[in-house]
């Protein structure tokens, strides 16, 4: 089942990172000099699929179990023990049980996927993940008739996760997908970034990546996968259903009640880069729009 989707660009095709930054900095300097009158100038107009640097990807994270500041996860996530790692698989599956991670994913094909990543907070990155299609894992455990959703749970270890002391959310962090979303070729379980093991602050040892949805759907450090008949608990959705829908597909036309989703700040673009337009389904409209055919996306946000 692997290789069902191809990157439109590989890292080798992309603008070298240094050249990209230089170009942005030149525009930034101009915008800075002109100051307030530069509204609209120095904005990156073209959408370039240039991966963010390792440092950017690993220093600016939302992982509230390690603190709510963007730098907290890098500072605090080192305490998380990721080996050994077990994942409980239960619900409507043929082979339920507590699997060692290696046992669950061993032998499955790991691919590089360069994906746009769009946070609900209106910032974005491009990340070169290494991961396995979730469909391959689900096929291995055997999805039973009647399963409609996949539920995921992040590990909950108060000794290793200082953020769990605060009731920011109803812990443990939980997320879910419709089964067809979970089986979609774009949906992967990532175990690496830039060919290196995924760092703790990014969700080690294994996390979900659903590139057409807001980042909070891509749950980190997964310790449990459950196949369910009904729509499962999803943390942000439960915390504030008006602001965070179960679907949470990236959609520039449906605003978050507190801010616009029409544009995004590209992480690493600098102080003067401004915003770039957000793409429908985060740029994966051709691949995923059919999953939602006939659905009113303003009602099922």
């Amino acid at each position, binding site marked *: 089942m692997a290789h069902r989707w191809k990157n439109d660009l590989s890292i080798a095709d992309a603008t070298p990172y240094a050249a990209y930054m230089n170009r942005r900095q030149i525009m930034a300097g101009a915008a800075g000099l002109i100051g307030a009158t*530069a509204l609209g100038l120095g*904005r990156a107009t073209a959408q370039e699929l240039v991966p963010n640097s390792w440092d950017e990807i690993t220093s600016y994270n939302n992982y509230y179990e390690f603190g709510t500041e963007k730098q907290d996860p890098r500072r605090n996530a080192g305490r998380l023990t990721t080996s050994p790692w077990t994942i409980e698989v239960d619900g409507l599956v043929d082979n339920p049980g507590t699997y060692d991670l290696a046992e669950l994913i061993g032998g499955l094909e790991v691919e590089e996927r360069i994906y746009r990543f769009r946070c609900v907070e209106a910032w974005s990155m491009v990340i070169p993940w290494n991961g396995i299609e979730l469909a391959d894992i689900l096929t291995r455990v055997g999805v039973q008739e009647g399963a409609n959703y996949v539920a995921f749970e992040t590990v909950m270890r108060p000794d290793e996760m200082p953020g769990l002391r605060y009731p*920011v959310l109803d812990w443990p962090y939980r997320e879910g997908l419709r089964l067809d979303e979970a089986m979609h070729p774009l949906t992967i379980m990532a175990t690496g970034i830039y060919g290196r093991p995924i760092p703790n602050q990014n969700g080690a040892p294994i996390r979900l990546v659903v590139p057409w949805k807001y980042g909070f759907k891509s749950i980190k450090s997964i310790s449990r996968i459950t196949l369910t008949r009904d729509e499962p608990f999803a943390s942000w959705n439960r915390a504030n259903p008006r602001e965070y829908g179960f679907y949470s597909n990236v959609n520039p036309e449906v605003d978050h009640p507190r*801010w616009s989703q029409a544009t995004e700040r590209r992480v*690493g673009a600098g102080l003067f880069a*401004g915003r770039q337009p957000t793409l429908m389904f985060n740029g994966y409209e051709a691949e995923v729009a059919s999953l939602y055919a006939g659905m009113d996306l303003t009602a099922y946000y």
Partner: protein
Amino acid sequence: MIVDLSRANAPLRRVPSSAIYVVSAFWAAWLFYLAATGGLGVEPIEALEHRYGLLALQMLIAVLAITPLRQFTGLSLLRFRRALGVSAFGFVLAHFLVWAILDVGTWDAIAADIIKRPYVTLGMAGFILLIPLALTSNDYALRRLGAIRWRRLHQLGYLATLFAAVHFIWLVKGLQFEPLIYTAILLFLLSLRLRSRKSRAA
């Protein structure tokens, strides 16, 4: 008096209040420099916006703490209050400009945000309330208005700071403590002020 800190008053008298302006301007410029050169992390727009906003809130609360501080400790920072208030306004202005120019960026989007986003509306209301306060923070305005009217006008500072604190609570995701702590401090200061007014009236 709870603790007596009045001994610090004599050496403090030698510090010119203009030092507050110098330090604030330097601090604001330094943060801008850091943001432009990567010192505030990989997403400098949000970082700078939040740093200016948070400093503004902290300084506004500090301004409101000066009178209770004198009542309870004898420490008199009254002569720094104007400079602190005007500098706080400077940070509010910087916060607004970073948001409007570097973050949102277009007039349409600025207007849409102010109208459609309640937390932005509230932040803007706080900012606008502070404008007459900043404009009348000089001896000339004080003389023209007279002490009573001037003081009444400047009581808007409480409302503006309350708006700022709620603006902060409103913009974070989930239940977070930091904005609630600032609001609690502010409400505590406000209650002290109301209590002392009541005891004076009695």
